[in-house]
């Protein structure tokens, strides 16, 4: 369980987050949605201790993120931010292998290598394993970063718009993989999504943010409703049930 209580954040004089309180239960996929500048990425950074907490309290599995040793947190929570700017000339398999860093002392064991190979396979990277990441396309590099995050093998996985740069095949593959690890292994996924239909299709719960506050949160079916979506995004859109899936028609 991720518990957020009374968290505010100000950067350069402007208020980014305003007294946010939120509980993300253990297990399942929770989508974080909202317009640009709502504070989604900032909230994710605070949960993942990438930014110092200014006020309030955040715990993951009962561990306060501001006082728990970073390496201990890295064994239960993995984070992938948008465009992390990896500048190193590593091979794909080496990059993914660094996901095992929190768990190892010194060398990779046979079990670590198995996990690395499985992560590569999972994201369709086995053929690229020996390529240098600076020779990959944007989408291939994004998949390598996602694979590294999975390779960390944590109970909590935080992803900030991981579908960026991914083609339809690999976007679907990533969302289905997230769904599967949540269902089969009880993992907790907190994911920032821009495409509301990905949230509608794959998430158990949706948290909507706007102007630094949480304005709606609940089961997916309770949030994917025309009136609530309009209050979040500021224009009206139709919601249809197509082949058993809630679908938001926001293109009109």
């Amino acid at each position, binding site marked *: 369980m991720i518990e957020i209580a009374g968290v505010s954040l100000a950067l350069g004089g402007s208020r980014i987050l305003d007294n946010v309180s939120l509980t993300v239960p253990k297990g399942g996929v929770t989508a974080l949605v909202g317009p640009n500048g709502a504070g989604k990425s900032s909230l994710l950074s605070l949960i*993942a201790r*990438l930014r110092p907490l200014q006020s309030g309290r955040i715990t993951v599995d009962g561990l306060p993120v501001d006082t728990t040793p970073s390496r201990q947190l*890295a*064994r239960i929570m993995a984070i992938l931010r948008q465009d992390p700017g*990896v500048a190193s000339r590593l*091979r794909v398999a080496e990059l993914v292998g*660094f996901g095992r*860093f929190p768990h190892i002392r010194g060398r*990779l064991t046979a079990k670590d290598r198995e996990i690395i190979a499985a992560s590569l396979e999972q994201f369709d990277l086995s053929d690229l394993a020996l390529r240098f990441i600076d020779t990959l396309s944007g989408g291939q590099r994004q998949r390598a970063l996602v694979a590294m995050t999975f390779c960390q093998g944590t109970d909590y996985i935080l992803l900030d718009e991981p579908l960026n740069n991914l083609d339809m095949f690999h976007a679907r593959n990533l969302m289905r993989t997230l769904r599967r690890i949540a269902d089969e292994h009880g993992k907790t996924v907190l994911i920032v999504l821009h495409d509301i239909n990905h949230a509608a299709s794959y998430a158990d719960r949706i948290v909507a943010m706007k102007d630094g506050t949480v304005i709606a949160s609940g089961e997916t079916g309770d949030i994917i409703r025309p009136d609530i979506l309009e209050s979040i995004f500021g224009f009206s859109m139709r919601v249809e049930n197509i082949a058993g899936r809630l679908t938001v028609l926001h293109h009109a």
Partner: protein
Amino acid sequence: MTAGSLGSQGFAYQAIGAATLLALFVASLFVGVSELAIGSFASDPEALRLIMISRLPRTVATLLAGSALAIAGLVMQTLARNRFVEPSTAGTAQSAALGILVVTLVWPDASLGCKAAGAAVTALAGTSVFLMLAHRLPPTQPFLVPLFGLVYGGVIGAAAIFAAWHLDLLQYLEVWMTGEFSGILRGRYELLWVAGALVVLAWWTADRLTMLSLGRDVSIGLGLNYAGMLRLGLVIVSAITALTVVVVGTIPFVGLVAPNIVSRFAGENLRHTSPWVAGGGAALVLACDIIGRLIRFPYEVPVGTILGVVGAVLFLFLLLGRNSND
């Protein structure tokens, strides 16, 4: 992982690399003004003395300085997240020279060790300021960082020259600014073993250093003590630079050329590449020192001058080759 997948081919490269280094080591022992035939030290005690007092210390010093400077360049590139900076061009060596100047002024009889300590402190300060400023430059302009480094190093170097000129210490400064090994004798180079130990430390912490180049967010997400690792990297760069400047003077381009050549072929996973970078730097400096001893025989051209030419050509080749690849 990669070493395993390259298999016997990787082993062949390692054998060739080790053989090259060994050949240069032996050549360095037998090149010099005093004639020395291979096998003569069994019969001739003078030959043995020459080897033990002069040639061996000089060769070992060259090996240590070359490998340490290459590793300092590699670590500095990791810290700055830019492949085109190195301690001798971006202010670290100039700050170290300024530090030695200050120590010499305050305490003229200071030992080499004290001078090195003073130089390390100023090198640390100078490099910290450089990195702080370099991290503010836009990452979309990768050539801005080395250009800024050149200006920054130039300004500190100019300050050192101005101070030395005022204090009538220009000849001393000249010694620290131009690297050469001709003055190396037994008892005059042993501080470089500390630089050698720092090379081992860099190799020991190679995984963590590599993670620095994944960026702050990724490395913290993986549980790395990012700030602590940055500080350790800074200490490695500053201490190696200070030690080499005090003992042999400034040797340019090693820290730039060796890591860039290795990166092109083997990437930047430092656990696998740092032995290559260290070996490559040692081979480069050894080869240039031997050339410097032969080119105007029986006189010597300082290794810093030779490397200024050889290193610049290699570096231009790397830059141009890079453009045609991208």
